[in-house]
């Protein structure tokens, strides 16, 4: 009788499937522990002593954030600079900043931001990506969005827009009124500022580089 090949034997493939699945799962869990350590939020002490964290403490709202090319890593990274006022203060305590971020993150879910916008590139594609929205030149001192809302700071302009989005249309496709209160808007802006400080390995590329360009020219 001819010998049966191992390659057409069910038991061989069953055991191989079990081994591969089990081992891949173990590797994933190990990698997850490693990643958890790297993406847990930093502390205020880290910020004060200049320790770089992938996800900084909520008190990062007290600092100026820029997005600069890192030649060693070959892509842009958020850089946390000197102190910067956020809603008139640059001394938000750890508790205050944390509760503001908490409100903002809850708000981002309660208002269903992710089903029009993308956050860190994930969500729907009906409205602009919000990953680095805080760093968008349009909201800056010379930006069209800040001018449109008639406010003097980036955070106030953003908060104003969030509360009355359909008053300030930027496109035929408008953001609807979601009943965002003044306090919630403040939280959401803090959430956006914090998100812009997350090290996203260079995503999005060339963000805000093309200042003043019109229609791709």
């Amino acid at each position, binding site marked *: 009788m001819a*010998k049966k090949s*191992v390659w057409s034997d069910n038991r061989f493939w069953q055991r*191989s499937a079990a*081994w591969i699945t089990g*081992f891949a799962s173990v590797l994933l869990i190990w*990698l997850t522990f*490693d990643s958890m350590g790297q993406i847990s939020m930093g502390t205020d002490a880290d910020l004060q002593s200049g320790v770089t964290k*992938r996800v900084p403490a909520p008190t990062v709202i007290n600092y100026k954030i820029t997005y600069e090319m890192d030649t*060693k890593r070959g892509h842009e990274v958020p850089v946390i600079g000197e102190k910067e006022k956020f809603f008139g203060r640059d001394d938000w305590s750890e508790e205050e900043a944390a509760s503001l971020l908490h409100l903002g993150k809850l708000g981002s879910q309660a208002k269903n931001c992710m089903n029009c916008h993308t956050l860190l590139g994930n969500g729907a594609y009906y409205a602009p990506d919000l990953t680095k929205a805080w760093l968008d030149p349009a909201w800056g001192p010379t930006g069209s969005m800040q001018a449109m809302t008639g406010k003097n700071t980036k955070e106030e302009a953003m908060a104003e827009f969030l509360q009355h989005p359909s008053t300030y249309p930027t496109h035929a496709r408008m953001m609807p009124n979601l009943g965002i209160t003044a306090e919630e808007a403040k939280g959401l802006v803090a959430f956006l500022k914090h998100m812009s400080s997350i090290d996203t390995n260079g995503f999005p590329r060339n963000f805000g580089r093309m200042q003043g360009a019109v229609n791709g020219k």
Partner: protein
Amino acid sequence: MFEPFVDVVPSFFGWLNQGPLTLTIFLHTVIVLPMIWIYKQEKARLEQEG
């Protein structure tokens, strides 16, 4: 081919990630190699049964 590791925080997996494909070749190898052992066991079993 071997470039210095530039990730923010050093880690075991970051250390294996030393250039094109080093990390993934390592992981694929440790997943596939034990199948040789499973193969040999099953071959022995089939021979015994046959």
